Each structure stands twice: as C-alpha cells, then as structure tokens.
C-alpha cells in the first residue's frame, strides 16, 4: 500500500466506517438514556425543575472555591485542554472545511499561528493531566484502563495533527493519513467510553439542577 493509497483509505472507507460507528453509537446511547423515561409526578411542588436545571447547566461551569483549591491542577489543566481542543477542532481551516462538507455550512477560520499555539497548550495541558493522574495517589487509585484509553485516543489526534502540520519525521501524505486514522480511532472508541460525556454532560447537569430546584415530595 502506497502512502497515497493509505491516505485515500483513511479519507474514504475508513472515515465511512468510523462515522457509522460513531453516529450510531452516540444516537443509541443518548436515546437509551432519554427513553428511560421518568415516573409521572403527581405531587404539586413549590419550585420548578426547568429553570433550576437550565441554570445549573451554566453555573456548574464555574468550580466553587473549595473544589478549586482541592483540585486546582485537574481543573486548570482540564479547562486548558478542553478550550484548546475546541479551538483546534473548530477554528482550524481544514477542520472547518471538513465540517462544512458534512453539515453544509462553515465559519471563518483562525490563523495557523493561533491554532498552533492552542495545539501546544492542549498538548502540554493533556500531559499535565496524565502526570497528575499518575502521580496523585488518590487519582491513581481511581484510574482505570478506560481513563488511560480515553486520554490516549484524545491525545493522539492532537499530537499527530501537530506533527502533520510541522511535517516532522515522515512525509506529508503519511502524516496526514496517520492523523485522519487517529481521529477515526477516536470516533470508534467514543460511544463506548466516558468520552460520551460530551453529549451527556448537559443532560446530567440539567438533571442535577432539576433535583435541587424541585421543592417538595415526589409522589
């Protein structure tokens, strides 16, 4: 298989397979959660669920002071790499072009120097999360295989993208193919792991807010 053949496979059949697994997996899992249903509540309560739920979806974004003090490394590095991932994924010109091809619309891109800087921030922040996870005794106790797997499949597209942009070590077609393949690995692993939090995060936050907003006894 030549480099261009590998690249063509990654851009063609590889991407098709990964997309099917990703979309189908995410849809089934989200539907399964939503269709669990909730028992009809016959009791009349004082507080509303909806407003409190929506409020919590936003307020939980800011960590409270005690939590921040206790896990400042986790929170700072976590935020840094999430913001970095967002910028790199959604503001880089080739990525916007890719998304536009699927969803039908695009938006302006950021200069490559900005993307490059955010990629470096993301890489450093992700390495910090890993080191913290492995050196902090409590974190290490809580860490299981899935945590390391999800870290790895998230880190891989970032590092391969950075290497592909700077053409380090291998030729450009191979580097691009490896980058696309690493994204496909992420897509395949996504629905079966805690990476699903990207979709379930706000559902969970709403539910938490709804519980605390509801003042009364459920029937």
């Amino acid at each position, binding site marked *: 298989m*030549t*480099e*261009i*053949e590998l*690249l*063509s496979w990654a*851009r*063609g*059949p590889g*991407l*098709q397979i990964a*997309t*099917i697994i990703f*979309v*189908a*997996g*995410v*849809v*089934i*899992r*989200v*539907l*399964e959660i939503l*269709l*669990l*249903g909730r028992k009809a509540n016959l009791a009349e309560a004082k507080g509303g669920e909806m407003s409190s739920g929506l409020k919590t979806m936003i307020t939980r974004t800011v960590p409270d002071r005690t939590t921040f003090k206790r896990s400042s490394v986790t929170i700072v590095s976590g935020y840094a790499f999430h913001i970095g991932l967002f910028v790199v994924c959604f503001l880089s*010109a*080739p*990525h916007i*072009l*890719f998304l536009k*091809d*699927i*969803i*039908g619309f695009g938006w*302006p*891109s*950021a*200069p*490559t*120097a900005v993307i490059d800087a955010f990629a470096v921030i993301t890489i450093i922040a992700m390495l910090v999360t890993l080191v913290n996870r492995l050196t902090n005794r409590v974190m290490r106790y809580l860490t299981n295989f899935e945590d390391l797997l999800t870290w790895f499949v998230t880190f891989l597209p970032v590092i391969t993208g950075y290497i592909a942009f700077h*053409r380090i070590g291998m*030729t*450009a*077609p191979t580097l*691009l193919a490896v980058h696309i393949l690493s994204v496909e690995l992420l897509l395949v692993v996504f629905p079966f792991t805690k990476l699903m939090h990207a979709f379930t995060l706000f559902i969970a936050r709403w539910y938490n807010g709804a519980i605390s907003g509801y003042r009364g006894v459920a029937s």
Partner: protein
Amino acid sequence: MKKDLLLKDGNPQQGNPLGGTLGESLRSQGVSRRSFMKFCATTASMMALPPSMIPMIANALENARRPSVIWLSFQECTGCTESLTRAHTSTVESLIFDAISLDYHHTLQAASGHAAEAAREVAMEENFGNYLLVVDGSIPLDNPGYSTIAGISNLDMLTESAKGAAAIVAVGTCATYGGIPHANPNPTGAVSVKDIIKDKPIINVPGCPPIPVVITGVLAHYLTFGAIPELDHIGRPKVFYGQSIHDRCYRRPFYDKGQFAETFDDEGAKKGWCLYKLGCKGPTTYNACATTKWNNGTSFPIESGHPCIGCSEPDFWDGGGFYKALSLPTEDLSKTAVYAAAGAAAAGVAVSALNRGKKNASNKIHIKTTIDDLTQE
C-alpha cells in the same frame, strides 16, 4: 553518497566512444565558456552544493565523454519528452541534453523501423555496463500485446535493455509509480520500472510531466559524480523532491492567515489567495515546481491560479479528486451519517422498548413488603 550507487568503476568518463567530450561538443555548438560556467553554477545551487564545487562540475562535465543514453518509451503520452524538448530554447540545459549521445529515442531519433532497433542494439553492445537507460511510461503485465515496440513487448525490452545499463532513470509518474495507466481499474496491469528491475540503481524522476531542468539536473549530477544522487524513500532525488510544494509556495502566507479562494472566480482567487479549499495537493506533494518553476522559470501551476494536482506522488490520479480539498472525505459522509443516525434511532427505540419490557416484567413479579412480613418472626 552511497558506495553501492557508484558505477562499476566509479568513472563517469566511460562513455560512447563515438562521441567526443562534452566540452568539445558544447564549443562546437557555439556555447560560450561564460554561459557554460553559468549553467554549472545554476546546477550547483540547484543541487544545494557549495560554490567550491562549481569548478569540479565544470571540469567533470567538460571532460566527460558523451555517455550513451537509451530512452525507452512504453505506455506513455510523450508528455515527458514534450517537457524535455521545451528546454530547447537555446538554454544551456537543452544543449547539455543535446550533448549526451542519445542513441535511441522513438520520438526524437531520425531512424525508424529496423534501423532504429539496430541503433539500440549497437549502443547496448558497445556501451555494455556503461549506458544510461531512461524510461518513460509504465509496463503492462496483463497481456504483453497491450504495448509492443517492433514486435517486442515492453517487459522484454525493459529487462533486456536494463541488463547492460549502469543506471536507470525512470522519467515521469508512469515509469516511476505506474501513473495514469496504473490508475484504478488499471486495465493493462501497468507497473513501474522498479516493480520489474530489482538489481540496478534506479532514479525516479516523477511528475506528469517532470520539470525539464530536474531531468537535466539528474543527468548533470550523474555526469559530474559518476553516481546517482541521494534519493528519498520512494527513489526521488532529494535535491529536487526534498520539500513539499506547500512549504515553498509563495501563497503559503495566505494559508497561514486563513485567506482562501473559495471558487475559481471569487475575490480571493483574484487576490491570489491560497488554493487549499479548491483541492490543492501542495501539502502532500514533493516536487521542485515552486522553486525551479516551468518554462524557463516563468511560473508554475499555482501561480496561474490552478491548485497543485500532486502529479509527482504515487497514485495521484486516484487521490480522491483534484478539486476536493485534502481534509475532505472522499465519499459523501453526510448521507452516511444520516443513514447511520436513522438506523440507530430505530435500534435505540427498540433497545428502549426491550428495557421497558424488562422493567415492567420485574415490576409485575415484585412482591410488596407489608407490616406482616416484618413481624413474622
């Protein structure tokens, strides 16, 4: 330079005994010393050699006997020869090419028929072990009858001619990687020179067609050092194919700023912005177009507003479409996503129904605890 790449005796001056030295030949054609030295300086800078090498190149070229070159054309379009002959505008590069002893070339030689084949056989016999074999075009393996010359199949002619060659220069993407004949579905079973010849040094000079000065540059290197230049992992001379088009493109600053032509006639295209979104393969293509340019350094495709099609890379014809940006999927992904989502939604509902069924079933068999149960003992 790898030792095993050197010619048999490491001496480039073994050549066609019929021809004089290159220096004599050039002088007889009216090439001045000044323009000859200029050519040597250009060649040195092209190959990234220090200026101290210029006299060495001049000396080697001047004293080199005109080496015999046999040029074989197989499944090709003559575009490579066309490209090479475009150097025939009284440039010194073209005279260098004139000055090798081109003993066999379908398109350029005067002889035809039996006389042409005889010329090839004589050249091979007299220069056995020393001649340069240049090949353009791919070789069909499915049926030898797909492409023959004087009743000889391409495969037979190549293997026979390669036996006495000092080195082989595969010119054009067809000879180097199979090219367009090799493109899906490859009806003739076309393969490249290196797929067949395993025991000779092969220099790949891909491109559709390759840049004329790259072809002459490779020949000049061979004449100067008596060895083939340093090659990359797919057999291309690193001096010409060491950098990607994208990295040397004069439109690169627009890519970095995020300024792109969206169509061929929009404001961005008129302003000369980056052609990435129009399918430019510059980022994955290694060639010297952006530096040496074409037509005596006039321009290269991107300069005239067309994206690079990646013609110096293997399988460029099947690379997912010339006008499809590199980051785009080659197939319709939104359709796949919609179908996958629809199928999954149905499956999700079915799974939920099963879950509910399970829940209802367990509710049914649930036995309520009463106060009597607690006071049983």
